[in-house]
């Protein structure tokens, strides 16, 4: 039994739930999820709520600024999804103005479910569209066509919640014209937030196999680069501004949950394949009560931050949702400072000079400035237009020091 120290305010912890179910698997996706297996869905929801209760018991869900339900395809849960959301709201103490997001796909978005979710408190939907070009959707192995995607977007836009769309560029066979078309149609849906990702071929996916076999061309990084530039300009003209490497929003509609990741905020992930980050002192007591082996820091000193991520099969999760959520990775104070600068430079607003100095990185930043990858303005360092495309050079220089 942990007694909360009344003098200290509770730790703000964003909550993420990973729902490992999909109607079908897309060719490019390497996230963990099962197609079908609907009979396991109720048990999953029970297990997820049980795990949430466990964290709550340790006072880690006393101040939750955002809830994000992702996966997989959360709406594949159908009627079980509102139960999951309601259960989480009961267990965790969400702020009154908490942002609650649910991910969905066109083929599982139906009016009744959307209404039930909005009634339960969901204020934001993230729709996986990827493209409004049927040819591209086929290459990506998506289970819907452009019309279905547009219908789903319309439905969600009318629900009163705010809408975000996911888009993919640089797919094999995708032309610049097709991409512009997709961008314009995305803006027309009235979405106030867009995520734009260049396609990458992940190991173990059907896409990897078809590319290796030569039946599908490998994504061309130069084409993807052009498309990312196009996206930035088309979306800016439409009033959606980039605020992070891959994310665009009308001012005020940035994803508060995702901002937590890039600003060094704490978060907990629930489910068989979810990641968390807590300040070390918050994890330490829980770990010792639960007898979780945290491991050691590679160097001297106390760990400042802990990252951990569960990576188990669904059945194992159902059998033991309270099993160790590790493996655990411990970071020193110095590493934490560098990590914060690295993640902060993903944001358009960048990081303060003070943060850069605290991380011992002024020289590195000046060197990157010399290469035209970052710039300094108003006491902050930020990534330049050139720097976005060559982000790994920026992030690598910062992390590797």
């Amino acid at each position, binding site marked *: 039994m942990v007694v909360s120290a009344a003098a200290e305010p509770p730790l703000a912890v964003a909550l*993420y739930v990973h729902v490992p179910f999909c109607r079908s698997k897309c060719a490019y996706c390497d996230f963990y999820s099962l197609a079908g297996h609907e009979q396991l869905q109720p048990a999953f929801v029970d297990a997820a709520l049980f795990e949430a209760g466990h964290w709550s018991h340790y006072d880690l869900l006393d101040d939750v600024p955002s809830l994000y339900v992702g996966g997989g395809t959360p709406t594949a849960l159908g009627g079980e999804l509102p139960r999951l959301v309601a259960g989480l709201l009961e267990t965790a103490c969400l702020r009154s103005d908490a942002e609650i997001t649910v991910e969905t796909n066109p083929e599982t978005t139906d009016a009744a479910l959307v209404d039930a979710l909005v009634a339960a408190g969901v204020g934001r939907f993230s729709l996986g569209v990827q493209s409004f070009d049927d040819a591209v959707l086929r290459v990506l192995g998506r289970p819907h066509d452009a019309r279905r995607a547009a219908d789903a977007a319309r439905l969600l836009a009318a629900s009163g919640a705010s809408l975000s769309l996911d888009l993919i560029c640089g797919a094999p066979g995708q032309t610049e014209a097709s991409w512009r078309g997709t961008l314009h149609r995305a803006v027309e849906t009235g979405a106030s937030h867009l995520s*734009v*990702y*260049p396609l990458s071929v992940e190991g173990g996916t059907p896409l990897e196999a078809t590319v290796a076999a030569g039946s599908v061309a490998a994504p061309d*990084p*130069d084409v*993807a*680069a052009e498309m*990312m530039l196009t996206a930035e300009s088309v979306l800016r003209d439409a009033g959606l501004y980039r605020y992070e*490497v*891959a994310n665009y929003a009308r001012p005020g509609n940035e994803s508060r949950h*995702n901002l937590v*990741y*890039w600003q060094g905020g704490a*978060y907990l*992930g629930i489910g068989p*394949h*979810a*990641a*968390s*980050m807590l300040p070390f002192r918050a994890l330490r007591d829980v770990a010792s009560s639960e007898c979780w082996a945290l491991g050691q820091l590679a160097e001297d000193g106390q760990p400042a931050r802990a*990252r951990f*991520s569960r990576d188990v099969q669904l059945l194992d999760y159902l059998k033991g949702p309270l099993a160790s959520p590790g493996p655990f*990775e411990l970071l020193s104070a110095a590493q934490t400072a560098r*990590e914060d600068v*690295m*993640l902060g430079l*993903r944001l358009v607003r960048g990081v303060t000079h003070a943060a850069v100095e605290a991380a011992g990185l002024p020289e590195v930043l000046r060197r990157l400035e010399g*290469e035209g990858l970052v710039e300094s303005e108003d006491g902050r360092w930020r990534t330049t237009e050139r720097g*976005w*495309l*060559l*982000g*790994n*050079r920026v*992030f*690598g220089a910062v*992390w*590797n020091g």
Partner: protein
Amino acid sequence: MTEPNLIRNFSIIAHIDHGKSTLADRILELTHTIEDRDMVEQVLDSMDIERERGITIKAQAVRVLYTADDGETYTLNLIDTPGHVDFTYEVSRSLQACEGALLVVDATQGVEAQTVANALMAMNAHLEIIPVINKVDLPSADPDRVRHEIEEALAIPAEEAVLASAKTGEGVRESLEAIVRLVPPPRGDADAPLKALIFDSYFDAYRGVVALIRVVDGSLTRGVKVRMMATGAVAEVEEVGVRRPVLLPVDELGVGEVGYLITGLKDPALVKVGDTVTLARHGATAPLPGYRDVKPMVYTGLFPIDGDQYPELRDALDKLRLNDPAVIYEPESSHALGFGFRCGFLGLLHMEIVKERLEREFGLELLATAPSVEYRVTAMSGEVVTVHSPQDMPDAGIVEKIEEPYLKVTVLVPPEFVGAIMELTDLHRASFVDMQYLSATTVEMHYRMPLSELIMDFFDQLKSRTRGYASLDYEFQGYEPSDLVKLDVLLAGKVVDALSFIVHKDKAQARGKVLVEKLRKIIPRQMFEVPIQAAIGGRIIARETVKAVRKDVLAKCYGGDISRKRKLLEKQKEGKKRMKQVGAVEVPQEAFMAILKVDD
């Protein structure tokens, strides 16, 4: 001292992997020279690298005591020889120390190139050759066919060949019996002045150079002063003894005996393989025949990836040379790669092994440039210069002629691959000499070919085009003039001296084109465009471009991606460390060897 009649000096010769080291192990076990519990597989291959590659590099000698069927106890000196064509000279000296040889032939593979080559060397050394057909335990063993091959290919009677399996132990005793019965005892004059052949040596940090010797005439005792006849070095005998295989000192080594000699000399240059040891006073007048100053055939530039490690590289080469006097080296500097050494080796295998030893035993990270041969350049002025490094090649304008080393090459191959061999040799400026059938399943083909072509991946190509069936042997045959030019490679407009190479005029265009194409694939995209050009005498003959990198970013970085992303960035950093910064361009190591693979 042992009665010569009870001594038998023999070697085991074979093609690579036919099992001679395993046979040597069984002999040591059978004669209880080594107790089973101390048995490390393939004891005589004492270096890690030798064990890993399954080859013997250093000759070793062991005295074993064998009680034969006739009741007598014989002293058998087993001299294990290097098993690779790079080390032919060492093999010949080791054979010179013997009177007989066990010729081991794999019962499934039959006679291969080095079987023939080594057998010929043994015959030239007038050894009694006893065929041993090994691995008879394998299901595909065909001893009759192999017996046939031995007789046809080598004209060695094989009806009484010993059938053996070094793995199971079958035939080991019979091999030793055959040695006792058929190998003649050593003959020599005990009263004549000392003549002992040095057939190998190694360096011991405490004792200095340890020479392995065979006493031909006279005897060798502790305390006498001896002279090395070729090097002129004089020293006192600190210790003589035999190897069991641990060193066992004795008072005296007499005619026919094989053992070791320690003189306290520390410089390997003074104790050379093939040299004759005699008494300093009243010694022999003529040395034993066959001594040769070993010449390197293949040269490469070795550079530390981190320039600060240059002193460590120099020390490492100094230390390595103590045990491997065949390696020669001199400082070399390259605009592209900084300071390093131009090293000479007996062959490609020797080069690979030395590089690996330098990296492993001394913790160095090295970059090797493509191997090159020694060219003899005659200038218009009449002056003759030897060139080991392409960057030292004088300008075409002042060159009268360039000569390069040629080889006599022997390839053994099944008949169905004769066409493949002809195609391959055509690509490598080889001229066909002749061909004969050794048996229904083996053809022996002879070619003349420049060494510089052999080192261009010839061996690997040979194996892959014949599915591994072909085997190769070669011998230096002299220098011939060739129409050669120097091909330069420019990166971002600047000549990178370490990438230059010498090529035949007729092949320059084609190879240059393939090379720049290969480099374009090997050199990673940089923050700017990198033109790659091949040029001869300043004239560009081929060009490719490495486009500037436009996108290098992981767009998705949410909660679960952060750790993975950092690890990726760390991996990227590690990758960069293995590159060499050449001017503004990051160049990976493979680029410097790319020229070797242009005939794929």
